[in-house]
């Protein structure tokens, strides 16, 4: 119950725009098949490059497919892909991080050296190379991106796990004779997962960008599955005649990433003092105006 209340409190403090953008994205992603007015892959070459109309609110692409429907279904593609990448990367990262944080000593030393090497390499380039060797395909993309993201989550998990292990109640559990398995699975793991999931939202935007980028390059989501990066690259040859078909998918993707980035920013603890806003200053002065001043 306490965790649930904490969660709601955290949600209440989030910036509204971010909440709106991310909420809408998740909603679209989940409900896409019911929300899309057309089959996103239904071609109608006679209606290709149509301007917005009552039939096609946002027009059609070069194959006459309904842009609005494709934008909506792309949200699902992106949401599923992003979730899979984060799920795999976080599972690996949290496992390694918590084991390192639990065992300490040489186990931690070895595991964190591996993580350091992973962090030292430009992960996305390695991921691209992996796709180059093993070929394009949905699961290759997901695994390649997870490969790029696990070291970061491992490092955060270890930091969180070390913090949890240093809490006094873990120490007292150990003294009371709780088994290592109990401490690990009932106390360390749940606390770490909770904290690391919060950090993961900050990364979700970057994962969505990477999926779109790979798809733009033809290495990620393969046609005919609609995806924003792919929609954009499909429309690019017609940039001069139909710029909106390029701009729309880019814009939607940008809004989603802005939402995640704002969430991440509000979570990151880089709070620095800012000047007192004028509105608050006036309020405070009004309070102090009622106070008696010494006669000069």
């Amino acid at each position, binding site marked *: 119950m306490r965790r649930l209340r904490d969660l709601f409190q955290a949600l209440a403090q989030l910036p509204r725009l971010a909440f709106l953008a991310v909420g809408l994205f998740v909603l679209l992603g989940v409900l896409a098949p019911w929300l899309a007015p057309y089959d996103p892959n239904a071609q109608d070459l006679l209606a290709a490059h149509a301007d917005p109309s009552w039939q096609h609110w946002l027009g059609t692409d070069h194959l006459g497919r309904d842009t609005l429907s494709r934008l909506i279904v792309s949200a699902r593609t992106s949401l599923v892909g992003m979730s899979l990448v984060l799920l795999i990367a976080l599972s690996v990262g949290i496992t390694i991080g918590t084991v390192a944080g639990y065992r300490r000593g040489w186990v931690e030393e070895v595991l964190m050296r591996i993580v350091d090497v992973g962090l030292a390499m430009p992960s996305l380039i390695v991921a691209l190379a992996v796709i180059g060797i093993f070929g394009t395909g949905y699961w290759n993309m997901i695994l390649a991106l997870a490969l790029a993201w696990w070291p970061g989550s491992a490092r955060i998990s270890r930091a969180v796990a070390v913090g949890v292990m240093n809490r006094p109640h873990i120490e007292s559990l150990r003294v009371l004779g709780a088994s290592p398995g109990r401490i690990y699975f009932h106390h360390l793991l749940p606390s770490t997962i909770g904290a690391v999931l919060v950090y993961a939202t900050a990364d979700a935007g970057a994962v969505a960008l990477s999926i779109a980028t790979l798809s733009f390059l033809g290495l990620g989501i393969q046609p005919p599955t609609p995806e924003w990066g792919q929609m954009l690259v499909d429309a690019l040859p017609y940039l001069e005649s139909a710029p909106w078909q390029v701009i729309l998918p880019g814009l939607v993707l940008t809004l989603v990433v802005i939402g995640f980035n704002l969430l991440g920013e509000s979570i990151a603890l880089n709070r*620095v*003092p800012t*000047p*007192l806003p004028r509105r608050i*200053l006036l309020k*405070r*002065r009004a*309070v*102090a105006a009622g106070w008696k001043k*010494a006669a000069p």
Partner: protein
Amino acid sequence: MTSTNILQVSHLCVDLYTTRAALRPVDDVSYEVAAGETLAIVGESGSGKTVLNFAPLGLMPTGVVTDLSGSILFDGQQLVGLSEPALRRIRGGKIGTIFQDPMSALNPALRIGRQIAEVAELHLGMTSSQAEARALDLLKLVRMSDPEARLRQYPHELSGGLRQRAMIAIAIAAEPKLLIADEPTTALDVTVQAQIIGLLKDLQRRLNTAIVLITHDMGVVASIAARVAVMYAGRLAEYGSVEEVLLTPRHPYTSGLIAALPSVDDAPGSPFRGLPGTPPVLGAPLPGCAFAPRCPQVIDICARRYPPLAGGAGTAAVACHVVNARQSKEQAHA
């Protein structure tokens, strides 16, 4: 008398605003400092002694706004209502400042020499090379060993005492008429504390600088100050010469503070004496005496009306209904 006073503060009120609250950390405070003299301002943390000294100079952290009322005459100039550019010319020029923790108060990324020379460039209009030479002289003046090498060093390479000497060199670089020292010895080892106090006394004699020393250490007060102002919850409780206040404290708070000091006469293992209760959290000004809840001599009127600071000749001025009523009775008898 006013002609020799370098600093004359009268009825100063400071209202302070943050994102969380409005409060009055300084309420109706008056005192003066003569040229070349040292005034100690004593109080617990949170008593407003730091705000009292730094708010008028515009030295408040980001996100904090202060409104001043009353009057602060410094060297013939009214500081209340002065613009930021005008205050800037005074800060570091006519008024030097020493902070509590010299490690964090010095810039870790700049050499000591640069940090001192900067003041000479700004306030004395010196060229870079003149200012470097001045920095070297200042390091010699604060009796730093191997001053040429120190100029090129960074703060983390110096010991705590040396850092505070560098901080003092920065504060006196433009030969200020007033030096404000905010707990200059609190962060230092006990052996170094005496050296720093000795250095301050020596510099004061040589440069004829007035010093306002903010502290909670009665030992420091006794060794350097001529006068003391005791602050409690934003107001002055007692104000007078060091002998008067330390030897014959009259305000119940001052008496309590001095009685709480450990003494050589105490039997080993005797219990620690302290003041019962805690000081009030600063907020809106209180109608009565802020010390009333902790005061052993409290009477009805204490909670309702604030006692003005009053005192006769030959004694410290005290803000206490009980003490002042007793005094006027004695005077009536005489």
